């Protein structure tokens, strides 16, 4: 039985390309499902899951290939997403006993139990009369023999990747109880050329590295891009005309504009949770303080006035507070203040220096870079400074950014140089909040300063 419970227009960053809808495929037994993955424990045994190829309903061909090819691709992206989370282990399709066809309704659960699968994702793809593809999937609890969730997506064929990420998000969400994060993008700094004269370009890609493209041509130095939590915008630091200033970049139009008319360098920008403000540092006579700009009125408010360096502001998800980096106490430490600049409190008191505080989208934690013992390490602490945990251990790991669900972090890593200038490679990595499942994020060249987007469909 398929019952339409709701209809959702899938828009997000590619509204013109993916205008589809999503419906829940309801199974009365769903409530009985007990299968669950605990994401709060590190080093959890990955859940064995079977994801057969998305079955083509016909031999039809679209502008980007046959339904069969699209189906194989969708399944492989779902498998890659789930596997990369570290929480799932995909069962090799060579082991499958039952062949899932487009007409299959209930799987033969015994066949899936026999190969050690605990969860099963079945799906099929059909061609609509208007040229779009319709993809339906169901997630099954193999032991309870029940459907856990089922959804239908309609999209232009070229958007098959987003459909795959949405399926992976739904599976992850149903099995972990947390929101997924696969339908998201990364903006980062692509680095090429010799270290003394590096070319740095703003680049954007899907969180799995697909659909990579450059947003700037590399003529000018660009650094520290940050995604808007609500719009198709990036704020970043650029050295256009040798004037380092904070810029706003519109991803849809490709237009960029300088933020404000400041006589001196502005840097270290970050959006407020509603996307309407940008907090940033302004340097004046050798002193950096934090300012807030309202993007609608362009009105600027000064938040800090200390002669120490105040930089790297990051908002709490409720927008009420800002965490930032300051050396006002003699060395780089992490502070928290109200968004009007009042009630400034230092929260980092461990050994060493602390930098780049970034508030978790869940609100409970602040991620940071810890400098000590000749290393940079990425860690997290509660927003009152307690419960510090270091997640990485390398030469220089810097600049964490949170996945939209607050369970995964990305950061950039530099290896040590030798005297001949060898080494010093910059790369982007991800790590689970528990400190496990550390993985390199593939980029075409070296990369740094990753910033995670919000979910594209919200």
């Amino acid at each position, binding site marked *: 039985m398929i019952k339409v419970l709701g209809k959702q227009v899938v828009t997000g960053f590619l509204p013109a390309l993916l205008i589809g809808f999503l419906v829940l495929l309801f199974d009365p037994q769903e409530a009985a499902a007990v299968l669950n993955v605990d994401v709060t424990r590190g080093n959890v045994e990955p859940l064995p899951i079977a994801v057969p190829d998305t079955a083509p309903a016909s031999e039809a061909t679209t502008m980007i290939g046959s339904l069969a090819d699209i189906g194989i691709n969708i399944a492989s992206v779902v498998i890659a997403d789930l596997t990369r989370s570290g929480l799932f282990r995909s069962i090799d399709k060579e082991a499958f006993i039952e062949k899932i066809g487009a007409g299959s309704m209930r799987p033969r659960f015994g066949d899936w139990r026999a190969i050690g699968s605990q969860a099963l994702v079945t799906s099929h793809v059909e061609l609509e009369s208007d040229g779009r593809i319709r993809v339906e999937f169901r997630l099954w609890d193999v032991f309870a023999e029940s459907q856990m969730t089922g959804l239908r997506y309609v999209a232009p064929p070229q958007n098959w990747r987003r459909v795959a990420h949405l399926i992976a998000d739904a599976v992850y969400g149903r099995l972990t109880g947390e929101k997924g994060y696969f339908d998201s993008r990364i903006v980062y700094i692509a680095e090429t050329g010799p*270290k*003394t*004269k*590096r070319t*740095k370009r703003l680049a954007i890609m899907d969180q799995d590295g697909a659909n990579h493209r450059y947003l700037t041509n590399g003529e000018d*130095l660009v*650094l*520290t891009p940050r995604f808007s939590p609500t719009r198709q915008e990036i704020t970043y*630091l650029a*050295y256009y005309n*040798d004037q*380092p200033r904070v810029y706003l970049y519109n991803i849809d139009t490709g237009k960029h504009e300088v933020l404000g008319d400041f006589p001196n*360098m502005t*840097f*270290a920008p970050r959006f407020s949770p509603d996307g309407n403000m940008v907090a940033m*540092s302004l*340097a004046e*006579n*050798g*002193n*950096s303080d934090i300012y807030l700009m309202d993007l609608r009125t362009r009105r600027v408010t000064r938040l800090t006035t200390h002669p120490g*360096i105040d*930089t*790297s502001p990051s908002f709490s998800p409720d927008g009420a507070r800002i965490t930032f*980096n300051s*050396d006002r106490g003699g*060395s*780089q430490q992490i502070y928290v203040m109200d968004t009007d600049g009042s009630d400034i409190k230092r929260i980092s008191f461990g050994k060493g220096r602390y*930098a*780049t505080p970034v508030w978790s989208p869940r609100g409970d934690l602040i991620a940071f*870079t810890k*400098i000590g013992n*000749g290393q*940079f390490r990425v860690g997290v602490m509660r927003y009152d400074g307690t419960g510090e945990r270091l997640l990485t251990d390398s*030469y*220089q790991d*810097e*600049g964490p950014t949170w996945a939209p669900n607050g369970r995964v972090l990305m950061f950039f890593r*530099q290896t*040590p*140089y*030798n*005297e*001949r*200038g*060898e*080494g*010093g490679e910059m790369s982007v990595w991800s790590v689970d909040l528990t400190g496990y499942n550390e993985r390199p994020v593939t980029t075409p060249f070296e990369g*740094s*300063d990753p910033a995670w987007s919000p979910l594209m469909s919200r």
Partner: protein
Amino acid sequence: MKMNGLGKRFLTITAASIFLAACATSETEMETVTETETMVPVVPAPDVMQTPLTPGPAPGTQAHLVATVGDRVFFEYDKAELTATARDILRRQAEWLRNNLDVEVVIEGHCDERGTREYNIALGDRRATMARNYMIALGISGDRMRTISYGKERPVAFGASQASWSKNRRAVMVVL
């Protein structure tokens, strides 16, 4: 200038010959030649290395700044205070700017890799400003000197070592 005997004699001849060519009719000089002629060594002369001398960097250029007073000062780790050595170089840079009044410069602030990116941009700005302010105090017009911070993005030395880091913690005067 200290010279050995052979060199002195050789020079005498050369000087005398040139003088002779210029005033061939002078008796006095004829005598000089006669006197020194006997002193010409009979040992074979070594091959002479000849290197053309360029006029040197034109005043007011970056190369001239580097060759005459130095274009950079260095800082301690995570510090922007000027050391005695740095102040010394900045005084010479100020003097150089006084001698090259039509020159405008940008002072670049740089850091080593042991600070985070955003913090180092602030620290580099602080270093460049400290250097600029010191030269303003020495009487150089602020209109001739602007600053820019590159943080740790433009290293000149590599290697996870004190030697490399200390070269990267710098403020560099660049002639525009």
